[in-house]
């Protein structure tokens, strides 16, 4: 890989040990993927913020590293294992809180913006078309690539942090035009109501490592958010090309190797397969974090109804969206907890719950593994009906 004199200097440790480590990491990954050079990034999104996911090993690394390095571009942080203000209501113990607090202060001292959300693009860190970024949250990378037209690979937590420190990433993968071209075309003529996340779930499996060209009914921004999140959870690719977002990308039809159709009946079968139980300890909505639009539409539906409490209910959102919708939050709070900074995937829900229902395709992948839950998929509307009368 070709490095500039300035990059060589950093690699040689002339700008300190922390920057050197970060540069080593960025360069090593570039070498693995055959990058020719480094390119500047507009922002970073750093994952691995919950104590539950990174553990004592992660704390140790972040604390040691935080004394030596600072981010040089805008860098925001993924959700934590708890709501910073309402963690007690989540059944989180003091020990977990204390460890989480150490992670936060390590990131803070490195200059990371404490947004605590998987939807940084709804909380102020929103790249524009063509911008190169180094994002680590899988659902956010797919949104950035596919909806916003920005360019990022699916970074790991440490590599996103390293990129934020040196302000650069290696130019490979989805930073390059040739890798953004779709290689499989996926037709979906009709998506039943509420099953957009499962369309993403199925597309991820079909596409594997290939960028899919989606031919499907137009989707709202929020539908893109849930579709992409599920796709990135079941698949290894962080981008799709969609007809209604065609203008966002130069990719054409050339290079399509395969055409697949997902029938409506297959989506219904998928929903049936992920149905799970009819009784739940927890109903969790907001993976990825609910947008203001989603908070509004849920509160509109629930406004005229009364709570029907059979299980705990979580609405997970970003602090930013929470602050922008006080009236909606007031409605939702009658039906459950509105939690910020965290979600059902990275919070230690296994300590309190065993069976969780969600409207998220991504959560169907992570609840059974990371969360040790019996997971049940239901469309948003059905969950709202279940928690209200």
């Amino acid at each position, binding site marked *: 890989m070709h490095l500039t004199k300035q990059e060589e200097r950093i690699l040689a440790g002339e700008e300190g040990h922390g920057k050197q480590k970060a540069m*080593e990491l960025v360069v*090593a*990954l570039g070498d*693995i993927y055959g990058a020719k050079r480094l390119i500047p990034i507009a922002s970073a999104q750093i994952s691995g913020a919950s104590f539950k*996911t990174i553990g004592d*090993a992660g704390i140790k*690394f972040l604390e040691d590293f935080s004394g030596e390095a600072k981010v040089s571009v805008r860098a925001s942080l993924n959700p934590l294992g708890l709501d910073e203000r309402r963690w007690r209501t989540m059944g989180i113990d003091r020990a977990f809180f204390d460890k989480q607090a150490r992670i936060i202060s390590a990131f803070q001292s490195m200059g990371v913006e404490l947004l605590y959300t998987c939807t940084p693009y709804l909380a102020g860190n929103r790249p524009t078309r063509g911008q190169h970024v180094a994002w680590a949250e899988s659902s956010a990378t797919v949104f950035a690539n596919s909806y916003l037209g920005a360019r990022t690979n699916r970074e*790991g*937590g*440490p590599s996103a942090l390293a990129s934020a420190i040196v302000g650069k990433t290696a130019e490979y993968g989805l930073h390059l035009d040739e890798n953004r071209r779709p290689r499989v075309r996926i037709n979906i003529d009709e998506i039943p109501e509420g099953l957009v996340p499962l369309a993403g779930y199925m597309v991820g499996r079909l596409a594997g490592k290939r960028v899919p060209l989606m031919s499907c009914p137009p989707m709202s921004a929020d539908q893109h958010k849930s579709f992409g999140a599920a796709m990135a959870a079941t698949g290894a690719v962080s981008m799709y090309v969609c007809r209604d977002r065609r203008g966002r990308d130069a990719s054409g039809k050339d290079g399509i190797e395969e055409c697949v159709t997902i029938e409506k009946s297959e989506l219904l079968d998928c929903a049936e397969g992920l149905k799970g139980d009819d009784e739940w300890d927890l109903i969790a909505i907001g993976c990825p974090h609910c947008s203001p639009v989603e908070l509004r539409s849920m509160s509109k539906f629930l406004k005229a109804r009364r709570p029907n409490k059979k299980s705990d209910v979580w609405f997970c959102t970003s602090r930013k969206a929470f602050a922008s919708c006080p009236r909606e939050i007031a409605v939702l709070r009658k039906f459950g907890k509105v939690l910020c900074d965290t979600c059902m995937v990275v919070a230690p829900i296994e300590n309190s719950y065993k069976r969780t229902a969600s409207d998220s395709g991504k959560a169907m992948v992570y609840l059974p593994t990371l969360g040790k839950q019996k997971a049940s998929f239901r469309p948003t509307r059905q969950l709202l009906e279940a928690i209200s009368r």
Partner: protein
Amino acid sequence: MSSTPMSFLGGVDPSTGRVVDPESDANGESISDSVFCFPFGKGSTVGSYAMYQLKVNGRAPSAIVNDSAEPIIATGAIIADIPMVDGVDVTLVRAGDEVFVDADEGFVELPELTEQHVVTSIVRSRGKLLLLRRSNKVGSYRGQWAGVSGFIEPHEEDRMAARRELAEEVMIENPRFIRRIDPIRFRDKRMVWCVHPFLVEVKDPEIKTDWEHDCYRWITPREVSDYRTVPGLRQVIDKLLGA
């Protein structure tokens, strides 16, 4: 040495440095202060942090050798300052081998092993392949079935060696080489055979053998597995015919 992919999160106990992955043949072994060889990494990205933890606990391996580096292991090796080399065929390494790692230059040496370059020509006629049984007079693999094989002499090119062996062993002059593939390495005790494979086509299935073989057969590619062959012969044939 693990012949299966490794995750450092859950796959290695950070306080003891022991492998705790039932799927790994290194399960129960300590990797502390050893050169740890495995094909590549798997599992959660938190595995990088787990490698750092291992280092902080003083239980890290002294080096990591991989078939192919993937981001989780590479990241962990960098943040934990563990020397790492990739692009090494770790199937040639056995637990307990002495391994010399130079991560700056990016190479690995196994000083206890000897590497020997040999040619193996697979002769084909009318779709059938020639197998020869090694006689009791040869130095190695007596009674086992092989292609037309022999050492590559110093300063000899492999194709020349193949030509010479074909002439000596089965009296094929002016062989028609159909295909050659990159050398394939096999480990047998302290020896690494670096086999240079060739595919040769002859019209006439009548051949004459010399003292090195006591009989020969023409077989279909499928029948190879019915014979007790020298190490790696099947792989050589599969690769030659599949190429």
